[in-house]
């Protein structure tokens, strides 16, 4: 696979008569993600008549429009003009970093992965053992260190309500990669921390899934009834551009947090941060240490 910055020439296509689809890059990279994020932000601010939904994704985005209000040619022209100015000019981002406690190698995903072993590449290994092996990591300990050591970008929210896709903020050679299950499972525990391709995720609801399963978080990220305090303003926690830091926990702490969520005492650790792609690229480990330091600093 090629290294370095991919050339950025976006590809425009229409998804029927109501969607404009723009692929910033065929390959995933932080640069492609930032382009998707900054162009969609600028399109939102432009308040173009007839635009009904603006959906940033990992390395592409989609704009839904009402063709009775704006023609396909006009929406493409408007977005292209915005892309020319907003494309990559300011690769900075005002965002927040959120700490997510994770119980790795937990009993629930373990029980589930055993039920679907016939759909997996390595039926005699757990998902963590398999992923550690193909990424050259030293067992569970080495895996947890690699997975939770550096923060991750929420590069897209979707598939189902509130599910974040996460992109690991390390050099490409250090990014964990693993294939999806050979055939998707029909069941995945709620709040499973998963991984497919180069993307991590948190399953917001119980259901089908094809990503490798590494653990669970006791911290809900979607609440359609909005009874959980930190989800009372909006039922989904994540937005594209949020930064996630995993914190490995053991079973007693998992149980304690789950109980606190139940009684309304739990609130997630999150801080506002300004992210600079330039500074990040100049010193990835140093910049990440600074970012994650804000979580429990002042």
């Amino acid at each position, binding site marked *: 696979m090629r290294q370095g910055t991919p050339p950025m020439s976006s590809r425009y296509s229409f998804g*029927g008569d109501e969607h404009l689809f723009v692929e910033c890059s065929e390959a995933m990279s932080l640069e492609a993600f930032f382009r998707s994020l900054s162009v969609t932000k600028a399109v939102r601010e432009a308040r173009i008549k007839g635009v009904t939904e603006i959906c940033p994704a990992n390395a592409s985005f989609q704009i839904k429009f009402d063709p009775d209000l704006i023609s396909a040619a006009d929406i493409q022209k408007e977005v292209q003009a915005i892309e020319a100015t907003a494309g990559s000019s300011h690769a900075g981002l005002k965002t927040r970093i959120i700490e997510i406690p994770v119980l790795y190698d937990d009993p629930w995903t373990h029980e589930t992965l055993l039920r679907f072993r016939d759909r997996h590449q390595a039926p005699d290994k757990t998902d963590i053992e398999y992923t550690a092996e193909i990424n050259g990591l030293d067992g569970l300990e080495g895996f947890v260190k690699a997975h939770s050591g550096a923060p991750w970008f929420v590069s897209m929210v979707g598939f*189902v309500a509130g599910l974040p896709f996460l992109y690991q903020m390390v050099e490409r050679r250090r990014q964990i990669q693993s294939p999806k299950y050979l055939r998707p499972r029909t069941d995945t525990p709620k709040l499973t921390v998963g991984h497919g391709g180069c993307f991590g995720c948190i399953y917001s609801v119980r259901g089908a899934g094809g990503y490798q399963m590494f653990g669970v978080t006791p911290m809900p990220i979607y609440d359609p009834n909005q009874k959980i305090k930190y989800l009372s303003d909006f039922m989904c926690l994540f937005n594209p551009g949020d930064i996630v830091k995993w914190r490995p926990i053991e079973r007693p702490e998992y149980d304690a947090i789950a109980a606190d969520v139940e009684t309304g005492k739990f609130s997630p650790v999150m801080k506002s941060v300004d992210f600079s792609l330039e500074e990040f690229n100049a010193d990835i480990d140093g910049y990440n240490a600074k970012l994650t330091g804000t979580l429990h600093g002042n």
Partner: protein
Amino acid sequence: MAIKVVKPGLSTTVQDLGRPGYYHIGIPVSGAMDGLALRVANLLVGNSEQAAGLEAAFMGPELQFDADAMVAVTGAELPPKVDGETRETWTSFLVKAGQTLSFAHLKAGARAYIAISGGVDVPVVLGSRSTYTLGALGGFEGRKLAAGDVLPLGAGALVAEGRAVPATLRRGSTPAAELRMMPGLYWHRITDGAQAGFFEDMWKVAPEADRIGYRFRGGRALEFVPREPPFGAGSDPSNIVDACYPYGSIQVPSGTEPIVLHRDAVSGGGYFMIGTVISADMDLIGQLQPHQKVKFTPVDMDGALKARHDQRTLIQAIRAAL
């Protein structure tokens, strides 16, 4: 005013015209799969076209009314009965307090729409009463109906009984065997031969056909243009770096069985898409039964817009007729 669910049917949900605006965080539009049929049912009972009704897939529910209400059933040919006595579809009829609405077996189509004067008055969530079952959101407790549920009704004046849609303007019981699509998105990923073959082949609705999407089988597997997998996409030729899935888009995992995403669409993922069914034909999909034969035909943007215009003309004709 309320109705009690005696029997829920196979999969009956509360739906209105949908919940646009939240796709960027994975919440799909939801709403009636045959939106035109729900609009018409509402018009027949004097509701606004946006009112919430019931969508009953393949089998009707049994509902007991605690007050007089005007009812209309459109979409699939699922004959209604009041205390066992048959009523016409596409026609308003009265159900009196204490009476039970039930249904005969499905004769044609897949989804019937039951509008009740005043509308089903479940709470509005993010601007809509539609049910999104995967996210346990909206509708009645975020799920399909179950025996014993009591659905509140809004206040509505009783319009005349026997209001009917002229036969020439009814659509739903004779679903099209043709779905028009606009090639695009990742269409270039398959060979010229595969592109031609996709339109030549006869497809059949697979049993896996629901509100999330309709799967088709029976056509030839698509041949891919060779490539080096882009970073993050995955090694299968049908994989892409996870992207948004338009409502109506046609994904073909591993190139074998096309899936058209519908009202409860998963909003994104890592399978390539060969194009998108045009907006005017999406309602037709909601009336397709498993095993039904379907052909896809290509149209360009002008063709899609013309079909959209025709669809609007039809709604206007129905409004004028009522």
